[in-house]
């Protein structure tokens, strides 16, 4: 009987690899399937498994190719891969050495996403200049998310750990399915109408591209853009990007990170206030001490006497000017007084009263008109006669 050749493991793996590599089909092949066990190694290589309903196949994509993949591959994503199937001799397994990867099935969705992103970007909805500032310490935070699940619990846990007296107002929204955009839009509208929060977090946990697709909605993007209240987007994990992330005022990689971004650490603020208060107190003490010393030095120096002498000189000048102006005034007053007395004497001589003392009298009719001629009166008219010491009434005969 012919003795069969016995091979070592290495030899047989090498042989199988040779067979694979000489096959034209396996050298350049397109395969579609769903990604599972995806790992992005820190070296930049991707390791994952591709599966369909019945089977799986191992895949590797080296950094040189991985860097050209336009999206972030993730478990559950359906993709089409181009590459070469070969054998990894050490483990005796065959796998796909991927050269390119594109979304399958999602194709249309992905395209829609890319197109919407480009359209809104051109319109300026993502521009930094339109982004509102997130308040440093919000009085109240609105959270639009599912009322159940880990996301809201994470947000509550992280915020209260940082800042004990949080004030959160939750708007329960659908974060999966066809109602995502409409309920999140409703939440944004509600908060803007109530105007009772000063920052809004839109939060959702991680998921596939399809799971998060509700956040790639044009109306939602426009509502976020229109919001008067700053919006923080925390949709999916760090590697997931949605239109919601781009248009929001701030993107948080995860819901927990959003919680950290909106609430500062309580102890840090307390320390900051105390530090600045102490700085103020020490500064004023030093300031006053410096001033005091300055005054002391000034007192001690001869300089002190110079301004006093100057002041005294001015004082004397002022005094002499004062007495000068006083005597001028007094002279003027005297002159006015003399003129006044002269005028009074003149007026006195012309006064009718003076005439009356000499025996003349003044006669008026009932209307108070002075009677100068006989024709001014009729018989029986009553007249008044003014004498030097009073008046008498009389009837004309």
């Amino acid at each position, binding site marked *: 009987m012919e003795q069969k050749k016995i091979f070592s493991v290495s030899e047989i793996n090498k042989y199988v690899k040779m067979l694979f590599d000489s096959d034209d089909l396996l050298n350049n092949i397109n395969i579609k399937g769903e990604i599972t066990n995806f790992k992005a190694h820190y070296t930049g290589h991707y390791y994952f498994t591709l599966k369909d309903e019945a089977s799986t196949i191992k895949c590797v994509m080296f950094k040189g190719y991985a860097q050209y993949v336009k999206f972030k591959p993730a478990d559950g994503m359906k993709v089409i891969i181009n590459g070469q199937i070969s054998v990894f001799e050490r483990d005796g397994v065959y796998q796909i050495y991927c050269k390119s990867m594109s979304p399958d099935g999602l194709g249309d969705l992905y395209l829609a996403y890319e197109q919407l992103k480009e359209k809104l970007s051109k319109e300026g909805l993502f521009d930094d200049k339109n982004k509102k500032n997130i308040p440093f310490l919000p009085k109240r935070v609105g959270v639009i998310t599912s009322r159940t699940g880990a996301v809201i619990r994470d947000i509550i846990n992280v915020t209260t750990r940082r800042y004990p007296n949080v*004030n959160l107002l939750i708007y329960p929204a659908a974060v999966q399915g066809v109602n995502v955009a409409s309920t999140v839009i409703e939440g944004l509208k509600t908060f803007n109408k*109530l*105007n009772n929060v000063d920052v809004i977090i839109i939060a959702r946990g991680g998921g596939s591209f399809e799971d998060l697709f509700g956040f790639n909605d044009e109306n939602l993007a426009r509502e976020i853009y229109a919001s008067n209240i700053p919006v923080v987007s925390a949709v999916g994990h760090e590697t997931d990007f949605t239109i919601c992330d781009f248009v929001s005022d701030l993107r948080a990689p995860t819901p927990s990170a959003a919680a950290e971004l909106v609430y500062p650490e*309580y102890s840090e603020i*307390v320390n900051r206030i105390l530090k600045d208060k102490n700085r*103020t107190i020490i500064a004023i003490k030093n300031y006053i001490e*410096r001033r005091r010393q300055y005054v002391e030095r000034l007192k001690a120096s001869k300089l002190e006497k110079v301004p006093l002498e100057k002041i005294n000189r001015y004082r004397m000048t002022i005094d002499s000017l004062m007495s000068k102006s006083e005597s001028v005034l007094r002279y003027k007053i005297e002159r006015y007084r003399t003129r006044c007395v002269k005028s009074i004497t003149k007026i006195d001589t012309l006064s009718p009263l003076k005439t009356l003392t000499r025996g003349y009298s003044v006669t008026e009719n009932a209307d108070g008109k002075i009677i100068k001629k006989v024709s001014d009166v009729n018989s029986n008219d009553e007249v008044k006669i003014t004498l030097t010491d009073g008046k008498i009434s009389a009837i004309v005969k």
Partner: protein
Amino acid sequence: MKEEKTFEENLKELEDIATSLESGNLGLDEAIKEFEKGIKLSKECSNKLDEAEKKINILVQGENGELKEENFVSEE
């Protein structure tokens, strides 16, 4: 929200006051005024921090469709 000075602006102002007092370039009256302002601000900031009360509410629709706030209890 009301258009009053924000907490952050007050914090910043306090810091600026400390810095300008440290520079020592102010006149005496001004320095005293700034000092008083700084102490007032630090008090205000501390009060603001402690006046808040922990509150976690959820908006729910009432029977007539109107929105009301209820205390949020996490559903496991």
